Structure formats: C-alpha cells, structure tokens
C-alpha cells in the first residue's frame, strides 16, 4: 500500500484529505506543521507528502528546502496543497522542488489526477 503524509495545520483539511486518500488505497499519516513532518520523513519517508503552504513553526516552503537537505533513505514526492494559487506562488513551488501543485478546494478526481502525474496512482 502506498503511503501519504498529509501536512496541514487544519484538522478539517487533514480529515478531508485522509478520507479521499483512503478511498484511493493510500495509508495516511498526518502532521500539523513542517517540523513535525520533517521528523516523520526522516524516520519513515512516505511515498508522497501533501503539503500546505502557510503553517506555524515551519512553513511548507521551509519544509521543502529542509527536505532537500535532509539525508533520507528515499525522497518522497511532494504535492503542494494550498489556497495560495497565484502563478507566482506556483512558480516558486516548482523552483523549490515541488513535484506537483493542487489548489484548495479540491475533489477526489483532482487529487487522483495529481497523484497520477507524480506516478503514484
């Protein structure tokens, strides 16, 4: 079973994302900020990280940079998942190394298509 780490400071978003991902046969873990997510990835790198942009403690962009510098047994795919949907933000995410980008709100079909694009569905 493929694994996804949902990183978002909103419990509601994590719950919605978990529900959708479980219908897509993913095993789901959750983190409330980037720092917590980094610790998780260093211990057990998931197949994919669904990553919010604005979070307390460590933002999505800070997490992405830290992930690039971390020594991991394998690098997870990273799908930014955010309400920040201006072209500037999306370009910044690409330059920082994100594999894909999904704008909130999203539905099951959209998330499925993004997971297909990164080769995980």
């Amino acid at each position: 079973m493929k694994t996804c780490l949902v990183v978002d400071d909103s419990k509601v978003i994590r719950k919605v994302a978990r529900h959708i991902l479980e219908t897509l046969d993913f095993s789901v873990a959750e983190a409330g900020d980037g720092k917590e997510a980094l610790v998780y990835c260093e211990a057990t790198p998931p197949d994919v990280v669904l990553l919010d942009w604005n979070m307390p403690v460590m933002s999505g962009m800070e997490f992405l940079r830290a992930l690039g510098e971390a020594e991991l047994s394998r690098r997870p795919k990273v799908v930014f998942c955010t309400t920040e949907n201006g072209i500037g933000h999306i370009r910044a995410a690409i330059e920082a190394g994100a594999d894909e980008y999904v704008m909130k709100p999203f539905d099951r079909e959209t998330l499925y298509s993004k997971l297909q694009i990164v080769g995980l569905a």
Partner: protein
Amino acid sequence: MEVSDGATRVLAGLLEARTGQQLQVGRRWRLETGLAPLLRSHGYASADALVSHIQAGHDHALADAVVDALLNNETSFYRDQASFALLKDKGLARLQRERGAGRRLAIWCAGCSTGQEAYTLAMMFADEPARWEGWTIDIVATDVSRGAIEAARAGRYSHFEIQRGLPMAKMVRWFDKEEDVWVAAPALRQAVRFQQRSLLDAAPHPGRFDAILCRNVLLYFSSSLRRQVFGRLASVIAPDGVLMLGAGETVIGNTEVFVSDFECRGLYRPILPEDAWRAA
C-alpha cells in the same frame, strides 16, 4: 422534479435525432439534473410544459438549449494519461517518421466537449518545438454542443477544470490567471480550430486525417449508429492513421473497419486491403 414517461420519450427522441446519443435507462437522471436550471431560467413549471412548447416547433433555440443540457460534457486535460503518452510516444512518432517528407499532420478531435483534450494535443506539440520544427499541425476539434464549443473557443477554465489532469508546469506555462478563471494562452487557442458539428455531419476540413480522437462519445450511441460513425471515421482517416478511443472503449464487436494497431496497442488503425486478404 419528476419527468413523465411521455416527456422522457420526447426528450430522448430529440436528443438522439440531433446528436445520435441515446438517453439510456441508467442515465435518465440527467433529465432531472440537466433540465432543472433550464426550467427555472425559462419559467416552466414542469418538464411537460417545456416539452409542449418544444413540440409546438416555434422555438429552435429552446430545443438547442435542451439538447445542450442533456449532453454529458465530462472531460479533462490529459484524460487517461497513459493513453496520451501512447499517442505521443508511439502513434505520433510513427506518423512523424511516415510524414517526414511533407511535414504536415491533420488531427481531428471528434466530440471535443469543452476543449480540454484538443488543448492537450496542442500542448503536446507546443511543448516539443524542436521535434516539430517546420511541421504544419492542423488540429480541428468538433462537438455537437454549441455551448461546449463556445466554452472551448474561449479557453476559460474554472479552478476545478484546470486542475483535473493538467500538470502544474503546463498550467503556468500555457494558461494565464484572470481572477478565478484560467485562460488558455493565445498561442494555444490559435492552435485549434473549434467547430460545432455532429458526428453524423460530414467531416470537417481538410476531410482526411492522420489521427482521430473520438473518446467517450460513441458509447452513448446505438450499436447501429456507432457502426455507421466508425464507417465515416474510416472513410476520412489515412490508411496508416491512428484512431484513439476512450480508455474503456474498443472497436471489438462494434465495427469491422478498424482493428487494434499492433505497433501501438491501445490505438486503432483502419482495415487495409491486405488485412481482408489475410482474413480470407
């Protein structure tokens, strides 16, 4: 909103006469969901009242609007990504080899709905400028729905439509954001000719195509009409052309004029005289 059996028969007949599409028993819910906004906007109390007005025969625009409302315009960018990868890596690669002298390809997206698949094709060519340098790529996309063709020409997509299937790098490269809408770049819109046309009409110009995409349309046709449309497609496709159907569709049992393309499994090619000789 309930639709009477009588109104259902009339509306299903109208849909099939105009488009070839059948309103199968399992899709009758579309009458309720599709017509409700139309009844509200035109002030009809029931589907029967709407049908009476259509049957009077004076309001062709209303009949057009009803047909549009009953059509399934479900589509997305890169719908079935593996199929588009196959088309790009195998089907178009072969056509590129075969057409190297003339450097011209004509592609018909038949039943293009709101344009996402036609724009997907346009992006496939535009994203490889070196590969296609010096080539003339003529993409024509048709759909029976006037509303769908207008939407396709405008190239304006909602937050949900733009995200479905389209990788972010292509989204920011080929679309501009105008408030909440994503608009196809002029170069992309100019790469596709959109025309309102039924699959029962004559094929669009140039009338002979190297590749035809007819995806998730013929499944709504009766078997006899489906066979007829396959025949029309075969009459306008090049002998070495490729036909791309929807991921869940096949020619097997539906026509004898196309066969699986053994070089590009998942695509189809027209029957050639030597195929008939082999089968004899």
